[in-house]
């Protein structure tokens, strides 16, 4: 557990909050747009979990992770820091999980913050009685989907980055791979008979998607763990 926190600390210092750098402009824009601007435009509508808002909460963090995750191993390899890290006593598991969890923690933490901030902004702008996301269950469902989406993006990105020579190659491969995956899911859903989902409620569909993502995340993380070999990384 100590090692894991060490890696998370390192990622935060090196990747997310490097000293004296305007690295967080993108994050501030993300917070300003989704936490202040859009809620002020939509007002109460923002809290009713409309389809575009749900998509924004799920896909925005997903793609935001793409910005960072390609760099995780391939970037360290390019900057020649990976070899020294691998020559230290830190465990394979801590290195891998540290990279995944710090990325998920940063992006999803920001998503959660934005979600709460936007609620505060709407309420402050509206005045009157305090209103909450409605229905609350679906809001929680969206947050869980967002978390699983971040986990999928981070673990998939780490897997691609492990096998890429450069951070650029990793980002390109993962972006194109994600696009391909979304298209495949869309085509499969279109090919399925509509009556298959006809009897299901929104909550049931949400639950199915969550279960699907849990399984997918577990598989990708297991593959990433199996792919992490110090000897392969040293030679690449």
């Amino acid at each position, binding site marked *: 557990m*100590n*090692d894991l926190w*060490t890696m998370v*600390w*390192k990622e935060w*210092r*090196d990747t997310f909050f*490097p*000293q*004296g*750098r305007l690295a967080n402009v993108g994050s501030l824009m993300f917070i300003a747009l989704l936490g202040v601007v859009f809620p002020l435009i939509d007002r109460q509508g923002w809290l009713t979990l409309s389809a575009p808002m749900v998509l924004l909460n799920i896909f925005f963090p997903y793609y935001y992770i793409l910005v960072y995750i390609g760099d995780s191993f391939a970037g360290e390899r390019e*900057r*020649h*820091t990976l*070899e*020294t*890290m*691998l*020559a*230290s*006593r*830190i*465990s394979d598991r801590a290195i891998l999980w540290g990279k995944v969890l710090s990325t998920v923690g940063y992006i999803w933490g920001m998503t959660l913050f934005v979600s709460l901030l936007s609620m505060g902004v709407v309420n402050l702008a509206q005045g009157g009685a305090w209103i909450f996301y409605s229905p609350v269950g679906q809001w929680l469902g969206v947050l869980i989907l967002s978390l699983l989406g971040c986990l999928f993006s981070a673990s998939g990105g780490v897997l691609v980055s492990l096998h890429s020579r450069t951070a650029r190659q990793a980002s390109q491969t993962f972006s194109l791979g994600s696009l391909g995956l979304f298209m495949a899911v869309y085509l499969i859903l279109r090919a399925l008979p509509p009556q298959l989902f006809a009897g299901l409620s929104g909550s049931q569909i949400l639950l199915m998607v969550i279960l699907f993502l849990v399984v997918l995340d577990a598989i990708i993380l297991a593959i990433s763990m199996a792919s992490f070999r*110090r*000897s392969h990384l*040293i*030679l690449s």
Partner: protein
Amino acid sequence: MSEPMIRTEHLTRTFGRVKAVDDISLVVPEGIVFGFLGPNGAGKTTTIHLLLGLLEPTQGRAWVMGLDTRTQADGIRARSGALLEFSGLYERMTAEDNLDLYGRIYRMRPSDRKARIKELLDHLDLWDRRKEQVVKWSRGMKQKLAVARALFHHPKLIFLDEPTAGFDPVAAAALRADLSTLVAREGATVFLNTHNLTEAEKLCAQVGVIRNGKLLTVDNPDKLRMSKANPHVEITGRGFTEEILASVRGRPEVAGVRQENGKLLVELRGEAETAPLVTLIVRSGGEVEEVRRGESSLEDVFLTLMKESSHE
């Protein structure tokens, strides 16, 4: 007898058809600076990777601090420090954070980390710049910091892979001096990969010479100088004709003669006297201004070994 710091038996590593490390059997005792000399691509870095358990040997075995590199690599990495081919510093982080990270990795207590950062950065004259991002630093400063990082957790064994490669002579000498005092103070064993023979001569108690993956020799630098290379004489003057060179070459005590920048460089066999040679040159019409007798350097040994191995 105590366990040597490093022991290898027929250690071999191949990449496809290339033998990067070829049947190396080596013993490095505790508490010395061991220099591993070889030209680029000789197999020095692969040997360090094998000793750290980052690569598995194709054949043979190795033990570091008594731990098997195949099965106990985690233990080896926990007790050793490494400065590999590149400094490996996180350049967006500050110098202080770079050291703190490795202190955390080696599970040092916060108070110990803080004290150690102060101690090492003070010693290297970097304390005042500890809050700066490393990216702004010169190469020499970065390498000093990387040395501090390798020593940070008081390892018993330190691997250094070409620590002064690409440095100008002044920067290299400064880093070498820092390295030397720090290592002496810490009392650690050092496995130093280098192709810088001056470095090896100044720092190492024992050297091994490797070429094409094969270990050519291992010994104390002084003994190597005596056994592998001949003393030489440098004669400055004029009129060194081909005839003079031929007659000098014909003397039994002369192992070789060549002319370089107007000087005559004569390699002697054993401890032969130089006076008869000077007399011969003068009598043959040459003019001698200065005669300097020189000890063989490690460079001479190295070049002799390289020449011998290329003939095999």
